[in-house]
């Protein structure tokens, strides 16, 4: 157990211990850098994870109040639950399904590839795939991604069998059990997947990569990490030169603490990260930290999602085995003749009866709804994940009318679909229905987007300071020792599940920070 003093101003303070923060912490510790890792949630383990949806949700999820606005349906059905993300050591890497897809080359150059799209603020990333590739390779090795580094693919479950056969029948050619950060055989002192079917509830096998039992214990072994669970950060402070120098947080007993810092890296996921920067406003930074261009909180993206579920005559038992058991990539390519720019992936998904009831058609009741529940064992399902358009008006703001228990304004999440998102979702629904009908579905169902699991882009990377919040290394354009280290950095959303890219950026950012510390650039 390493403990740094509150007055130690040589430490890097990282806020959030998920894919971004947890990885950054370990990478820095491996390089000998002293790290204080502040995590709002408690520490669980594979032993304490719960194979039951609602109890697990209470254990892992971020349930603190947030508010919503906009025309998205989540604002009506789940007005205080815009996002389905975690508050626990390991963050949302406890809950994620494990899909680990590299961006396509053009997804780093959305503006150049798609051209201007009316109503969207497309922008090219200040980094390219070529620059990212070596870091992607390191991330895949670290995470044990299947079909990379000689790790075999996972065996497909029943839900995948239905998807695969339907895919073939409608002419798709890119369908397999994909690239998953789930051990298909024991690797890196972690067990292999036993097909529990509770990927979303924290993997009790530890087969699915999570910073909770990989990066964080590895960092602890270096003796450089001081992990402080139950620490809710209130604000980041700065000196009179405008450099951040301390983080004020409520500790697990609710007592306010102030940790000095040489560098601060924010990785609280794309809602809490901008909220914290906005809540840290001061006389010198009246609009919040790093917000000189007014871009903090803007361009909130959540991926164009939705699900297609189908009932069959014969049983499927889709809840058995990995949740994202398979993927179809035929629609991820940029083919504007479909009536929209960008593309989408189709991935199997399953829900237990508890979540099925809550999310199949929120608010529904009566026999039409219950007749679907009665077919539970005969269902197959897929989730759609596609690139959504960055819009300035989709944003995180402070809701001054609603305060958390420490008196800080909560985040309001505003989202309206862009016409491109609507066209893409419609296309995906039609294709998903076609796929299941091709294998004789009795009935197909369009399921609306769940509260957001992929929250992206609220502190985006940009080549020019006026277009975003941070540069290609996640470094604030305005404050050189302030870093954004999570999915908030995404300039555009791409159509890929974001975790692999967040981890990749964290590895790359750790190199940058360690070098800058050495050369005293920060």
């Amino acid at each position: 157990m390493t403990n740094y003093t509150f007055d130690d101003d040589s430490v890097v303070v990282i806020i959030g211990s998920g894919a971004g923060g947890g990885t950054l912490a370990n990478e820095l510790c491996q390089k000998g850098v002293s790290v204080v890792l502040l995590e709002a949630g408690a520490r669980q383990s594979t032993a304490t994870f719960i194979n039951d949806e609602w109890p697990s949700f209470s254990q892992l999820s971020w349930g603190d109040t947030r508010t919503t606005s906009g025309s998205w349906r989540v604002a009506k059905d789940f007005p205080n639950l815009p996002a389905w993300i975690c508050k626990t050591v390991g963050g949302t890497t406890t809950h994620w399904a494990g899909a680990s897809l590299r961006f396509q080359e053009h997804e780093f150059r959305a503006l150049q590839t798609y051209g201007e799209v009316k109503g969207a603020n497309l922008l090219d990333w200040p980094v390219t795939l070529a620059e990212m590739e070596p870091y992607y390779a390191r991330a895949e090795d670290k995470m044990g991604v299947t079909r990379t580094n000689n790790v075999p693919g996972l065996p497909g479950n029943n839900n995948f069998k239905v998807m695969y056969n339907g895919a073939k029948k409608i002419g798709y050619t890119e369908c397999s059990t994909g690239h998953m950060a789930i051990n298909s055989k024991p690797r890196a002192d972690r067990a292999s997947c036993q097909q529990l079917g509770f990927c979303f509830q924290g993997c009790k096998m530890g087969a699915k990569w999570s910073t909770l039992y990989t990066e964080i214990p590895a960092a602890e072994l270096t003796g450089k990490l001081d992990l402080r669970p139950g620490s809710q950060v209130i604000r980041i402070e700065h000196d009179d030169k405008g450099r951040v120098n301390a983080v004020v947080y409520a500790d697990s007993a609710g007592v306010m603490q102030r940790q000095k810092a040489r560098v601060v890296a924010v990785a609280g996921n794309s809602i809490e990260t901008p909220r914290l920067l906005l809540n840290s406003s001061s006389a010198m930074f009246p609009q919040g930290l790093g917000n000189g261009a007014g871009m903090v909180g803007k361009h909130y993206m959540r991926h164009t999602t939705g699900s297609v579920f189908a009932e069959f005559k014969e049983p499927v038992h889709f809840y058995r085995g990995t949740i994202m058991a398979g993927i179809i990539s035929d629609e991820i390519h940029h083919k504007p003749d479909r009536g929209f720019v960008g593309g989408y992936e189709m991935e199997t998904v399953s829900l237990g009866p508890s979540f099925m009831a809550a999310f199949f058609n929120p608010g529904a009741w009566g026999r039409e709804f219950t007749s679907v529940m009665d077919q539970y064992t005969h269902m197959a399902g897929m989730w759609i994940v596609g690139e959504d358009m960055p819009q300035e008006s989709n944003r995180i703001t402070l809701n001054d009318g609603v305060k958390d228990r420490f008196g800080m304004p909560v985040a309001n999440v505003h989202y309206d679909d862009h016409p491109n998102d609507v066209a893409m979702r419609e296309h995906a629904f039609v294709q998903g229905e076609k796929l299941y009908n091709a294998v004789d579905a009795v009935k197909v169902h369009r399921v609306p987007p769940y509260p957001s699991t992929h929250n992206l882009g609220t502190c985006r990377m940009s080549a020019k300071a006026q277009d975003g919040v941070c540069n290609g290394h996640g470094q604030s354009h305005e404050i050189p020792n302030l870093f954004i280290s999570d999915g908030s950095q995404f300039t555009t959303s791409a159509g890929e599940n974001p975790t692999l890219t967040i981890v990749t950026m964290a590895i790359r950012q750790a190199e940058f920070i360690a070098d800058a510390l050495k050369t005293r650039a920060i």
Partner: protein
Amino acid sequence: MTDLKLDRRRFLQGSGGLLLGTLLFGSGPIALLAPSRTWALEMSTLDSDTGSRLLLVIRRIFPHDTMEDAVYAFSVKALDERASQDPSVAALLKQGIADLDQRAGGEWAKLPEDKQVDILKDVQTGDFFSLVRGVSVNTLYSNELAYNHFGYEGASFPKGGYLMRGFNDLKWLPNPPLDASPNPFA
């Protein structure tokens, strides 16, 4: 001390009712689990009459004809817990039930099912219905009895997952080729 007295008085008054039932489907998945065919649910705040009326409302909102009342009772229990935390909830529930009777021009519970549902449709945007539906959707489908009813196998870790227990046992479609879906034991 005051709290203690209050609790004691409430206990002596027996303000919480009892919900009783008998399993109807003697060979159903739930009867196989249950130690006996009769069941009882103790409520801490709602009276027995309110409890049994609520149970029927929930059955009409989420009708599963072969699902035992014992499963619906979990949602009544959840509403009772809400009511014991917040007195306004108990009032809302009682009012909501009285309102159903008023709209029925007698006892709502005695109307035929389609008429009961028509009245529920009339109140579906109100607070009473939202509360009952919202609490029920998160409890009715989230308990061991419901899991058994729907054929869901629940927690899998204690049983070693599904690797050896049918994760890929679907036989009505051909198996994907090995490059798409490798053999689990290769």
